[in-house]
């Protein structure tokens, strides 16, 4: 074998697996998106062109555009809070003389280590549930009426956000903590000699120094947040246990159209649109992603 064909031979099995199991279903989804396939047309579907895309993009009532706007709001709010709070916590973790730092770090890591679906279900039942949940229990102790946390759109949205932040903080804090540790202490010493206060040191040294290190992690977390499915689905959309809140993100919306209302062609069109959005976004952030690899 020559030098050109040998690497292809080595990666052939992997590429076949990926081609058949990942690429082909995506292409098939693209094909389905051009048809009227649904529960009545399981076999006798026909090509209807771009009608599904038209419905998604130009009929506001279809629900895709509101879901997209909601997803963008969800991503922005989550990321801003996540980055700001993680930064503060990471700086505090690195306070001089904090002997128990590693102990705190270990405790902070639990939400990351737990299986996500378990955490979400524990939050849903243990914290937000209107009868069993701790929140309503505490309200009761204050002689306040119980609240159906997951029923209203606004409150359900913020409950989901709380869970997402809870699960996402550990990774961000640890990433920032690692970045802060890589800063040469000499910068701070000379800054102190120059008379710089804590705030100045934070904004002029810590922040700019860790930015290149944490930027790829932030970009990747942004994608993860945009694609988040489990929280909204498990908290509010479970079949048979819907809470009444409509806080669909694009992904839970696509899922519902396929697996609950059985509108396969339309759902496939939504999927392709989401993929297109992700591709455009990742072209914008091409470099940071490449740097970080497939994490």
């Amino acid at each position, binding site marked *: 074998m020559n*030098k*050109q064909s*040998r690497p*292809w031979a*080595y*990666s052939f*099995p*992997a590429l076949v*697996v*990926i081609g*058949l*199991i990942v*690429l*082909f*279903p*995506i292409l098939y*989804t693209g094909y389905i998106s051009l048809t009227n396939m649904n529960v009545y047309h399981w076999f006798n579907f026909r090509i209807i062109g771009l009608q599904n895309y038209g419905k998604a993009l130009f009929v506001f009532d279809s629900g895709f555009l509101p879901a997209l706007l909601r997803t963008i709001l969800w991503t922005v709010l989550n990321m801003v809070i996540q980055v700001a709070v993680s930064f503060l*916590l990471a700086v*505090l973790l690195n*306070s001089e*003389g*904090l002997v*128990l730092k590693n102990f*705190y770090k*270990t*405790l902070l890591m*639990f*939400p990351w*280590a737990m*299986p*996500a*679906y378990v*955490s979400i*279900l*524990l939050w849903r039942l*243990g914290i937000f549930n209107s009868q*069993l949940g*701790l929140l309503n*229990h505490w309200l009761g102790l204050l002689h306040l009426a119980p609240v159906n946390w997951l029923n209203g759109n606004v409150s359900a949205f913020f409950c989901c956000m709380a869970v997402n932040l809870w699960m996402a903080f550990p990774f961000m804090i640890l990433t920032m903590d690692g970045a802060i540790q890589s800063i040469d202490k000499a910068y701070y010493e000379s800054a102190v000699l120059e008379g710089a206060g804590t705030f100045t040191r934070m904004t002029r040294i810590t922040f700019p120094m860790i930015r290149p290190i944490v930027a*790829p992690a932030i970009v990747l977390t942004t994608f993860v947040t945009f*694609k988040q*499915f489990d929280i909204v689905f498990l908290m509010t959309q*479970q079949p*048979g*246990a819907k809470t009444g809140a409509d806080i669909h993100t694009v*992904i839970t919306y696509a899922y519902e159209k*396929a*697996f609950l209302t059985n509108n396969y062609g339309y*759902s*496939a069109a939504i*999927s392709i649109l*989401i*993929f297109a959005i992700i*591709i455009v976004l*990742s072209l914008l952030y091409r470099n940071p992603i*490449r740097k*970080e*690899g*497939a*994490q």
Partner: protein
Amino acid sequence: MIQNPRKRFLRLTATNLFFLVICLAGLVPILYALSVSLNATNSVFSEGFSLLPSQFTFQNYRSVLFNQPFLLWMRNTVLLAAFTVVIALSVSVPAAYAFSRFRFRGRSTTLYLLLLLNAFPSILSMFALYRLLRLMGMVNTYTGLVIVYTGGMTIFSLWNMKGYFDTIPVEIEQAARIDGADDFQIIRKIVLPLAKPTIIVTAILVLISVWNDYIFAINFLSTADKYTLAAGLYTLQATEQTRNWPLFSAASLLASLPVLVIFFAVQKYMQSGLTSGGVKE
């Protein structure tokens, strides 16, 4: 840094208190579930919330382990995860090696396309996969589910291990080649031993993601005796949530325990095994 010792002491005490409160608050959902699962009195709220159950019992755990199909679900999960790990890794190790060591036409384009494919949320092609598997009669079979899991995990493993291979100096292999070793010998005697940390970490990450998946499991498996832990737990909470809250807490903590143990055991490895992934392109 020169600081007033009294001020310093106060500041450290405040920081410590702050972190104790934060850590405890962060653990509330887990601690509460733990407390509920260990509490003998069934009315959760008769004596209010406390982290220590008033009447201690292991009854919920016993009944999860012996009266529920928990052990069967766990066996199913281990089986699925093991097959997925073996298949995903055996196809992606040679591929990762090829993409790290050889420079060939189409290399960086392929790598980038793989990343794009990985960016596609697998839930969105789930229906297409379901339809394809149904055509082949593989819905509600482990083969089908292993196929589904293997696909996504292969891209992840390939990229993850390629990054680590990049950090192993190529000089070692060149020296072996001069000594007359062929590709196969180099991979078996030099690359694999050196790459052991990344192979272990990647295997564990694949294992954990199969362990933690519920959405494919509940859609592709339809009979309860085939369920994985995640699918079983999902059904447990979906069907009889309020009555079985203590039981569900016990089951979900038991299902999380192996993941927690593994996570903390390899956590050091994970940081080096992962972050080294992107150092060299």
